């Protein structure tokens, strides 16, 4: 894995390769010198130059390697390729492709580097280049961090253009007409006399040619898809129950399985007694696995019943048994020796605090939260001594392949990961524990496909959650303005926990994720300091939609609102005044204008809160409007304004923003994981509801296209929603709620 040090120069490489009966086009960046390991396999055809476009006798297939967990990534990837290739994305085949390091995500590491994602200074760019190399070397074919769009915006269009021109070149040679005279339309090359040749019939000839790489991307006036309302390629399947997810795969002779592992994650199993479970109807085998035991049966329900009947004793995992003990660990982590970062230190906070007669102090807390996608974790695995096939939804296919090879002792090239559409993830599919468990079971059933499903209860207990976080904040105001702000944050490192499970090196330097959403915010508070403290690892944790900023947005934007109120300023006016990043300022001003902002108090029964968080390079500002009703506080309306550089598909853009707001508000109002006896108390959706239909507000979305870098929109809607709501509750009731979920402190309708 460590090819990093000798790799020197960056270059672009675009290639094509002959495949059985056709041609494949790929595009990727790499630093050559020494020879790129990917090129070694060239004779193996497809596996060598990794294709985004494949043309054979059956037609065109677009390869969309970023997983689709519902955010529409297959559709957007297909439209980006099609924009240049001139095919109808609804009429061609779409395939997520095999796991391959050439599909590396050059942007995934951006947010783990200690430079704000908008910082385009030399240091930042240099380091981001390093992140890119690191992610390639690690083979990070990862979907996450709202990175699909920034990563694919150029790359996929380029792949489409190269494929188009090469197919035209093949047509030129066959027809004797020069390439410049040819046009393309709907999967065909059109000759000047109106005759046409389909891409499929040109495939074999195109494979003989050197790919045409002197292409320029079409100017935006010629775009047919980008920026216009797109129709998702999966919309009919998902509206008729015909979309197949991983959980729906049912090969011949399939056996159904489930597992029970230590509900105190990371703890091992002491002993189990399966004597009564073994005798239950349909049970085929009961198998010990890592940290637990699995049941293979002829029906999922029978497997669930038998698993529940096994008597198990567990060993305790190495962290406190309950929530109170876990919070204690954070409370005791604000010490010099645990200080991990101070990524921001403007002005002189100490001096400002010393100079104030009444500094404001507050403590903010955010809980562990499960991802709990609606499709529980599952995988279908077929194991033989020759090969391993895994059908599962995953955001980390390359890692899964490596982990599976290690577990089965098969060479990596004998491990086939067939990536499936995913019924929600929010970060849950950035781990592969469930798939490895399914492999363990399949190894006990050689030659028989095994479909392993986690029960919802198993899923709630083994959903590597978002970490708990504790902030101690201080600040001062002077002359009606915010003068200083210091936030000390203690949390366990998400990165350390997750990277260790991936068996990847933890990125060097400070744990940025635990302070993102605070230190990198675009406000010029004269004295502003952010200090991170690394608590010891407790419950194993993972990235949760919008990662560090998901919690930190609440800590930062709530406390800023406290200071603004203490200064007696108008929240909107003071945010605009403090803002020192032009796109963020435009976002705030637009929000103010479209919402008709006239202060946080509308009348006795209605109030508003505002917050802005910059995350994943996107400034996102929101107003939450609440009312006081006899049933409790009701969220009436949300305004959400952001800048993503350019909106590729307005339909999906709006869906992602609304979904993100609902996600954020629902969890902020109603959800936490609390622990007793090492396990979460919340075992199913009755205790972890997030938002239901009746609580969903009207959401008015406005996306600005200020022309900067094109950014993804999956995560940025999340961070400012919770603080905007808490700020609205303060404006309505005078009560400052500093701990999530909010329903511990106020009643909601």
């Amino acid at each position, binding site marked *: 894995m460590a090819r990093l040090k000798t790799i020197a120069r960056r270059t672009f490489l675009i290639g094509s390769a002959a495949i059985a009966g056709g041609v494949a086009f790929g595009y990727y960046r790499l630093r050559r010198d020494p020879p790129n390991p990917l090129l070694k396999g060239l004779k193996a055809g497809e596996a060598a130059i990794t294709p985004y476009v494949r043309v054979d006798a059956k037609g065109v297939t677009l390869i969309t390697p970023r997983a689709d967990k519902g955010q529409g990534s297959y559709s957007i990837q297909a439209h980006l390729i099609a924009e240049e290739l001139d095919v109808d994305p609804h009429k061609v085949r779409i395939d997520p492709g095999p796991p391959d390091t050439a599909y590396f995500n050059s942007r995934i590491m951006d947010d783990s580097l200690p430079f704000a994602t908008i910082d385009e200074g030399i240091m930042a760019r240099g380091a981001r280049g390093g992140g890119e190399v690191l992610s390639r070397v690690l083979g990070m074919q990862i979907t996450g961090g709202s990175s699909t769009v920034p990563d694919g915006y150029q790359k996929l269009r380029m792949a489409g253009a190269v494929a188009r021109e090469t197919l035209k070149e093949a047509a030129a040679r066959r027809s004797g007409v020069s390439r410049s005279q040819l046009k393309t339309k709907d999967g065909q090359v059109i000759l000047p006399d109106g005759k046409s040749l389909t891409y499929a019939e040109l495939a074999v000839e195109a494979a003989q040619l050197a790919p045409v790489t002197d292409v320029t991307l079409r100017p935006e006036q010629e775009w047919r898809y980008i920026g216009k309302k797109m129709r998702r390629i999966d919309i009919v399947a998902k*509206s008729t129950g015909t979309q197949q997810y991983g959980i729906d795969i049912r090969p011949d002779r399939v056996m159904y399985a489930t597992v029970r592992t230590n509900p105190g994650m990371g703890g091992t199993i002491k002993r189990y007694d399966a004597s009564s479970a073994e005798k239950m109807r349909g049970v085929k085998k009961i198998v010990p696995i890592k940290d637990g035991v699995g049941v293979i049966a002829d029906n999922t329900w029978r497997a669930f019943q038998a698993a529940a009947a096994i008597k198990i004793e567990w060993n305790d995992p190495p962290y406190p048994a309950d929530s109170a003990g876990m919070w204690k660990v954070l409370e005791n982590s604000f010490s010099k020796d645990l200080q991990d970062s101070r990524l921001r230190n403007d002005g002189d906070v100490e001096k400002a605090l010393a100079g104030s007669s009444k500094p404001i102090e507050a403590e903010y807390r955010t809980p562990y939260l499960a991802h709990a996608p609606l499709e529980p974790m599952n995988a279908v695995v077929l194991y033989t001594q020759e090969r391993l096939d895994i059908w599962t939804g995953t955001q980390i296919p390359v890692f899964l392949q490596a982990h599976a090879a290690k577990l089965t002792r098969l060479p990596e090239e004998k491990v086939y990961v067939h990536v499936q559409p995913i*019924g929600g993830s929010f970060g849950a599919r950035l781990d592969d524990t469930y798939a490895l468990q399914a492999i363990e079971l399949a190894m006990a059933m050689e030659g028989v496909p095994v479909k392993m499903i986690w029960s919802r209860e198993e899923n709630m207990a083994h959903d590597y959650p978002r970490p708990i976080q504790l902030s101690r904040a201080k600040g001062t105001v002077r002359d009606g303005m915010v003068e200083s702000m210091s936030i000390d944050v203690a949390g366990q490192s998400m990165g350390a926990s997750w990277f260790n499970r991936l068996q990847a090196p933890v990125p060097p330097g400070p744990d940025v994720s635990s302070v993102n959403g605070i230190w990198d915010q675009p406000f010029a508070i004269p004295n502003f300091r952010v200090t991170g403290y690394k608590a010891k690892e407790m419950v194993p944790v993972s990235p949760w939609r919008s990662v560090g900023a998901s919690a930190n947005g609440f800590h930062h934007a709530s406390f800023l609102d406290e200071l603004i109120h203490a200064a007696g300023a108008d929240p909107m006016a003071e945010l605009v005044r403090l803002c020192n990043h032009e796109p963020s300022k435009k976002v705030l001003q637009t929000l103010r204008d479209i919402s008709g902002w006239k202060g946080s108090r509308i009348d006795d029964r209605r109030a508003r809160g505002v917050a802005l968080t910059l995350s994943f390079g996107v400034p996102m500002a929101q107003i939450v409007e609440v009312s006081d009703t006899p049933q409790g506080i009701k969220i009436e309306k949300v305004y959400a304004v952001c800048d993503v550089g350019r909106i590729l598909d307005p339909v999906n853009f709006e869906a992602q923003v609304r979904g993100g707001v609902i*996600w954020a508000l629902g969890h902020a109002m109603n959800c936490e994981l609390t622990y007793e006896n090492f396990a979460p108390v919340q075992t199913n*959706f009755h205790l972890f509801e997030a938002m239901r239909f009746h609580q969903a507000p009207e959401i008015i979305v406005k996306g600005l296209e200020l022309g900067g870098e094109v950014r993804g929109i999956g995560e940025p809607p999340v961070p400012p929603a919770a603080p905007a709501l808490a700020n609205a509750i303060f404006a309505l009731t005078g009560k400052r709620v500093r701990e999530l979920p909010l329903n511990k402190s106020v009643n909601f309708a």
Partner: protein
Amino acid sequence: MQLTVNSKRYDLDVEPEMPLLWVLRDELGISGPKYGCGAGLCGACTVHIDNTAVRSCSINAGEVRGSITTIEGLGTPANLHVVQQAWIEHQVAQCGYCQSGQMMTAAALLSKTPDPSDSEIAEAMDGNLCRCGTYTRIHSAVKTAAQMMKGK
């Protein structure tokens, strides 16, 4: 045991206490109804029994009286139900995993209440969780489906 699903009769040899959901999914290979919670909390498994929306995870196969319709029996890509047409028009689905259940609940609502008010929609749909947060479009799609039914 005999069950009628999407107008087809099946003879089954299963425990009467097996939840209908697992009979449909694992015994009959009908995968439109989804497993989300197994406890009547999410609605992903919703089917109709004689036009009433039922959580198939929470009714035992042996207790079923009447004929069962799943999303596959509601309409097909070639022959869409109005609710499905409205769902496509509004591009409701994100991950889509909850949507079979959402549409089955919506179709049952509209068959009894062809012109539902906002609060009737909220009440009917409240038992169907959507982790992706598609509620605002579900609301619009139910309204559109009601309009389309009027036009028929």
